């Protein structure tokens, strides 16, 4: 299974980015291959509007089944993620990616 994180860096110890649409990086962890792929999303700061749909589209291209983030996506982004069938877990905004992953495995994150 592939699990996506919104983060401020590209490693296990990076801090999570609580924002969805304007997150700095998207990390995707493939637990079968034990492998990370990351996407540098920092260009998004140049977008005046519509950051949410744009980031969700990028996320979709990366093919995760689960998204772990902080506050949760806004309305438009939520629509895209729902259409894409991605399950969203929130409340990991102040953790590191590793802590967020563990919290998810232990069912300590809230569904969106």
């Amino acid at each position: 299974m592939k699990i996506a994180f919104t983060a401020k860096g590209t490693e296990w110890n990076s801090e999570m980015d609580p924002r969805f649409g304007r997150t700095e990086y998207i990390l995707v962890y493939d637990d079968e291959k034990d492998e990370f792929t990351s996407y540098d999303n920092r260009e998004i700061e140049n977008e005046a509007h519509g950051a949410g749909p744009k980031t969700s589209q990028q996320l979709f291209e990366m093919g995760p089944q689960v998204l772990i983030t902080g506050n949760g996506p806004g309305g438009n982004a939520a629509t895209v993620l729902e259409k894409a069938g991605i399950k969203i877990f929130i409340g990991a905004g102040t953790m590191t990616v590793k802590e967020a992953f563990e919290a998810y495995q232990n069912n300590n994150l809230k569904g969106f």
Partner: protein
Amino acid sequence: MKEIVIISGKGGTGKTSITASFAILAGSEAVIADCDVDAADMHLLMQPVIKKSVDFYSGVIALIDENKCTNCGICADICRFNAIPLVDNQHTVKDLDCEGCGYCAKVCPEKAITMYEQNVGDWFISQTKIENTLVHAKLGIGAENSGKLVAKVKKEANQIAEKEDKEYIIVDGSPGIGCPVVSSLSGANYAVLVTEPSMSGLHDLKRVYELVKKFNIKAGCIINKSDINLDMTNKVIQFLKEESITHISSLPYDESFTKAMTVGETIVEYDHSELKDLLVKSWEIVKLEVN
């Protein structure tokens, strides 16, 4: 580091005065971000000295190269905003009417139209009168606040807070319920809702709380001018109970807010013990709630 956002759907509720009071009370523990860019008034109370000023570009508008243009008029025909009228026999873009869709640039047979980024204002890093940092912005006429500008102001504030090891970022949030508010709330640890007991106050409070709730952000509420309409204040309190929003405090209708503002002070600096006490207590509650 905790990010506290102060919002109110409606204008004129005293949001900025309350935010500035918190900024003074937090003192060197906080970095301040003014994201209410449409009515950026916080600097009037914080008297900042600008340390850094940067041009802000946002959105694009069309520009016609008159040397390449043959005035065929295709651009004017397809423009749904009537933004390319014929002026002295030359098709010219009216900047205020151009929405930046770029349709004209795509259909121009002479490739005479380019879309260029608009300088819509500036953002600043300043030092306030109590020597904490204020990040703020100023927009030009017709320029709209955007998620982008709010994100920029907050990002700068965040970086400074991190570098200087501050405990709080206090954000004066944008009004309304659109993209700038979404951006104001995104990443926040706590939301302070400021309202007043009027029909429009309650109506707007409910609308803005919908967003806060969706983002799963813990919230508290300050009812300003609470003694002006007790029935309505009770309705507000009822709403807070139903939604489990902390009722931080009720402030009385008091012209001292304005009198303090007139001399460039926040109410906590101004000589008025009752209001000052209420705001000190409010800030203590906010700190407790967020930690």
